[in-house]
Structures are given as C-alpha cells and as structure tokens.
C-alpha cells in the first residue's frame, strides 16, 4: 500500500490534545508602566489566546503614578499558567510578573459593596449577618442597606449568598488584590 496513513479527523486542519489535564487557580501580580493601552494589551492577550480571567484589578501603586500593578486571577493547566506568565513578560511595558500562587504564601483580599432591599425581619437579619461578617453599613434607607465587606473571595461570596436569600441585592465587587506575605518588598 502506498498510503499508510489514516485521517481520523477529516477536515480538521489542527489536532487537538485530547488529554484532560488538571486545572489550577493562580493569582498573578503584574507590574507595568502606567501608560495608555497597557491594560488593553494585557486583556487582549488573555482574550486573544483564550486564557481565563476570573478577576482583574488595576491601579497605580507609586507616588508619581508611573507604575501600575495589575492583579489577575486566572485558571489553567500547568502548561497554560507557565505560558500566561511568559506571554505577560513579553509585553514591552511589563516590568515583571509574579505568580503569587507559585512564589509562596500570600494574602488575597476582595472588597464588595452589597445593597440589599429588605423589610421587617429580613432587614434585622441582614444586620445581624453583617455583624457576624464584620461588614460595615455604608448607606441606609428605611428599606435598604449598603454593606461594605472585605475579605477572602469565599467570605464575600458567602455573604452575598446570604443577603440574596433575604432580599433583592445589587453587588459591586473590586476583584482580588493580592500581595506576598513576609517582610520582602517586591521591586517595581
């Protein structure tokens, strides 16, 4: 036979790796020049290459506002996570990229404003739960509260879930900010 091959994916120009590999959640701190378009570069990289973004926050972190820190929570296989780091590092305005999940223990916090519309018993209950979660009252009317809560993503999630059970809610979340534990300062 001249033809030894078989085409098991007729019509497909590409082959797909069928093996499922475990997916992990990683938190990155990306130090970048605070210049126009830098956030678009980072976001475009994620969407263009099909990486996940679970959360993304950005703010300048130096007094002269020339440097920003982008916190990204993403998920992927080990190979994808390594790729994400390498791809981010390749962007010209990126100073450095820290995979906080790999680099060691770190603190991860989120902040949320949760508006809950509730009356009577549910209104009192929402205050009690807020107390348990150390959430502060940021605004109130006779039929609503706005709570400010901060903590781990799980804590914020569960607080919102409870509030949801008590009344109609509206939520504004900051997304994750993260920093390494210990005395060492990450250079910018």
């Amino acid at each position, binding site marked *: *036979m*001249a*033809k*030894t*091959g*078989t*085409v*098991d*994916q*007729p*019509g*497909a*120009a*590409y*082959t797909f*790796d*069928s*093996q499922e590999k475990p997916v992990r959640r990683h938190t990155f701190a990306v130090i970048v*020049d605070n210049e*126009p*378009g830098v956030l*678009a*570069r980072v976001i*475009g990289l994620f969407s*263009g290459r099909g990486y996940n973004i679970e959360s993304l926050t950005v703010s300048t972190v130096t007094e002269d506002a020339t440097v920003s820190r982008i916190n990204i929570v993403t998920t992927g296989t080990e*190979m994808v996570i*390594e*790729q994400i780091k*390498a*791809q981010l*590092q*390749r*962007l*010209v*305005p*990126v*100073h450095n990229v820290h995979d906080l999940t790999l680099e060691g223990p770190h603190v991860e916090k989120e902040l949320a404003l949760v508006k809950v519309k509730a009356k009577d018993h549910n209104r009192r209950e929402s205050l009690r739960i807020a107390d348990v979660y150390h959430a502060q009252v940021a605004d109130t009317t006779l039929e609503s509260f706005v709570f400010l809560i901060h903590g781990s993503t799980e804590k914020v999630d569960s607080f919102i879930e409870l509030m949801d059970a008590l009344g109609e809610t509206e939520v504004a979340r900051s997304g994750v900010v993260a920093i390494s534990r210990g005395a060492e300062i990450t250079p910018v």
Partner: protein
Amino acid sequence: MDTTEMTGAAMVIKALADQGVDVVFGYPGGAVLPIYDELFKQNRIRHILVRHEQGAVHAAEGYARSTGKPGVVLVTSGPGATNAVTGLTDALMDSIPIVCLTGQVPTHLIGNDAFQECDTTGITRPCTKHNYLVKDVNRLARTLHEAFYVATTGRPGPVVVDIPKDVQFGSGTYAAPEGKQKHKTYQPQVKPDRERIDAAVDMLLSAKRPIVYAGGGVVNAGPAASQLLTEFVRMTNFPCTLTLMGLGAFPAREPQYLGMLGMHGTYEANWAMHDCDVMLCIGARFDDRITGKLDAFAPESRKIHIDIDPSSINKNVAVDLPIVGDCGYALEDLIKVMRARHKKPDEEALADWWRRIDEWRAKKCLSFETNDAVIKPQQAIRRLYEMTRDRGDDVYITTEVGQHQMWAAQHFGFQKPNRWMTSGGLGTMGYGLPAAVGVQLGHPDALVVDIAGEASILMNIQELSTAVQYRLPVKVFILNNKYMGMVRQWQELLHGGRYSESYSEALPDFVKLAEAYGLKGLRATKPDELDGLIEEMLAHDGPVMCDVAVDPTENCFPMIPSGAAHNDMLLAPVAEGEEAIGAEGKMLV
C-alpha cells in the same frame, strides 16, 4: 546629547537616517504629507513607492530577511494602516523586524470618526510586537529609536509608530539615539545559562539516536549562528533537519542534512524525528505543522529547546531542558563545552542510527516521474535550481503560498541563510512578489526569483509596477496548474474530491499581463520548452514574468495528514514503485 529644534516630520527623517535606514517602502496620503515633504527635500533615504500598503510591508520583510536589517514602512492613516495589517501579522508570525510608521489624524480629532481615521494602535495591537501613538512631538525621536530597538532585539517583530499630523507639523527637540540604550523594561536574555548548556551536552553525549531540529531563530540570529550550527553538526555528525523558516541555516549539500521536516517534510526527517531519543531544537517552535499529532510526537525523546523567547518554550510540547538565549550564543557555548569534554558521542550507536536513516533515505521520497507531455511542477523547480546553481550564493528565492511553495522548499537547495523568503507562519498568498521587490533592493545585483502560483500571484500583482519603476530585475516564475492546488489537494484527500471553488477560472494571459506592466513575458507549456524558458529568463537583465504550465493534477508529497503522527505519512505513489494513482485512487486516503 545632540539635540536640535525641528518639526516632527523632519525628526522622522533624521531618526531614520540616524538608525542607518537607507530604504523606506511606502505610499502617501493626507496624514503623512508632512513626512513626504521632508522626504522630497533630502536624498539620504530612498523611498520606494509600492502599489498597495500590504506590498510595502512584504517588501520590507523581504528586505529585512535577506539583509538582516530592519525593514521600514511608511503609510497613511485609515486605509493605509488597515492595508498594512496583513503584512504586519505576517511579520509577527515569522519574527521579522519591521518599523512601520503610520500617519494619524490630528490629535484633537482622534476619536471623532474623522476622515481617514482608524484606531491604528487598537487594530495593530495584537499583530505587532509593540506599538506607539505619539502625542507629543518632544517624545517622537525617542519613541522612534525605541521602536527600532524593540523591533530588532530579542525575538524580532513588527513595531508600529502612529504619528498624528499635528505632531508631524509641530516643532520640538530632536534626541539622537543613545547608542546601546538599555530599555527600562524590555531586556531579553541573550546569553544562555551555563549550567543548562552543560546539562545539554550531557544529554547529547548520552544520545543513541540524536537529531538536530533547527528553525528560523537560527537565521534571525545572524549568519554567524548558521555557521556555528554547521560547525556543531559537522563536529557531532548528528543528523540535522530544518523547518520551512530555517532553510539555509544548514547547508543542504551536507551529508548530515535530512531535508525539511513537518507536514510536507521528507520521509527521513520525519521518521528520524519520530524515532529519536534526544532532540536538540534550536530556534524553532514546535509549530502544529511540524509536530502533527501531539501525543505521538517523538514519543521516546528527551528534548532540549533553545529559544530567545521564553514564551515559545513549553507552549505546545513540554521539553526536558529549556534554554533561553540567542541561538548564536547558545551554539557557541555548546561547541565550546562539547570540545572541552573528553567523552565523544556514542559512535557505534550513531553508526546504527545512520544506517536506519539511510534506509529511510532510500525511499527517495521526493522523487517524481517526468514525461514528454506535461511539465511536472517539481521538475520546473529542480531545473530552476540546477540552472542557477553555478551562481553560488547570489540566488534569492521568495515564494507565494500553496503547493509551489512546498515544492520549492523540497526541491531548491539552500546553502546559506537569508536566501529563502517565504510566508511560513501566516501563509500569506501574495507575499512573494512584493518580498522579491524588497530582496532585490537589498541585493541589486543578485538573482531574485519569486516562485509563484497562478492564484497567489494575482493577490499582489500590482507590485509588478513597482519592479518596473525601479528597474528591479525580479523574475516571477509561475507554476500554473490552473488550480489553487493546495486547496484542491486537501479537497481531494479530505472532501471526496469535491473541488469547491478551487479552480482558477478566467485566468489572465500572464504573458500579455507582463507586457502590459512593461515586463518581459515568457511561456512554456511542454517539458522540452522548460530549459529554454529558464535560460531566456536568466539572460534578460530586466524583470520577467514566466507562465509555466504544469500538471494540474499533481499533488504535494510526502504529506502527514493533519491528525496523524510522523510515522503515518503519505508518500507519493512513485516512491513505492506504483503507477501514478488516478483521481479516484487519491480519494481513498
């Protein structure tokens, strides 16, 4: 620091001159008129007027790939910039250093949907290595210098500098390049880690079935890197295969050369890749056209990967030993460390390995049968190669995209880097002619041939005008099979021979077309006319377009069908000593 007051447009010209630019490929328009006005007033920089902005970028690519210098492009805003996008993407995929200057509407109009406004930095962000919008004339010079630095350092690529018209008119201070400036954030690692080189040598010396798999990164690292690769392979006697992008990085005439690998690579190269136990990948990126089915790719091998771009490592294929660095430095270190060792590669195992490779070679997978009735496309390329071989290194080949491109890669032997310019990563039909224009500008006295298909050539045919205007003696060598042959081949193999829209209906008369543009036109339809045509083409000292009628049914083999492993490749039937299979037989695959 040398600083002077001048307009932004004047700064552009001065910065280009200070960067050593001698040629710019461009096309004027409203948003770049101040720069064109400055161009008019000087004669240091030569402007080449292309006929389409895509052509400008491909020409700049051809120039860059054949000279090793960055290619420079100048286009207007809006449609000028969007027309350049295909070229920029092509340059990004193939890692070609390009600086592309685009005009932009005045800053106060940006965002207003002004005439010929487009979001150039937004559109080109994913298809450039980096881009800039310069809003302050006092930052223009430094940005331009930085653009050259970014385009040419590390893994090269295209960089866009978008310059609003008011910035071109505005006046500011010019800053000269600061010599070897250190960029504050972009500093790619060029020197490899020494311990990793040691580990690589250990691995290579323990190999029983080694292979060197090298790519365009070696070409990009400069001619010295190719020289070092040659030295390394000769010294070790390891078999060496090259990617489409790497052709010429190792001389095709050397006994260790196995030919190109991958989808249309040779039988011996792909089998040796599949069966190797240690793979040294240098400046290549495990592209899907190379690896085929990933989980069947070189299953028993340990892999070393040398690349200047860390994101190329462990992207498609997990490797055992990643080495980040410039291919030239890495090869230099490898050779040094190897020499210093007393141990030699296992000669007995290597001799066994070569015996197996010779068996694969004996298949003669690239052989083809000729006849008196019709020119075989492979035959046309072989003859072109044989009849230009005595010109030595002074032959430069560009291609379009399709079967003719693969046949050119298989049958034209390259002994030196920078002689082969093809669109590898993006596979852009219409690349070859403008690229040939760029190559010829970089090498005025060399023979430059665009090996083309009749479909591809029509995609940037207008660049014949450019060749004529600047008296560039490029030769366009069309393998006219009246089909989008590569599309037809896939339809034959994968879609039951339903040739949906792949027949090149209503083709122009290419000889008349050549003459209409002011070139010499030649035609060959029978095998006995082929040599005469090539002779005439070579003898003419102006541009020529040749229409070579070739067998419309010929397919490009060997071929690894997508989804298959390297050892699962299809061979041309003649290699098996069979009759040429008919149309129905081919459908059975």
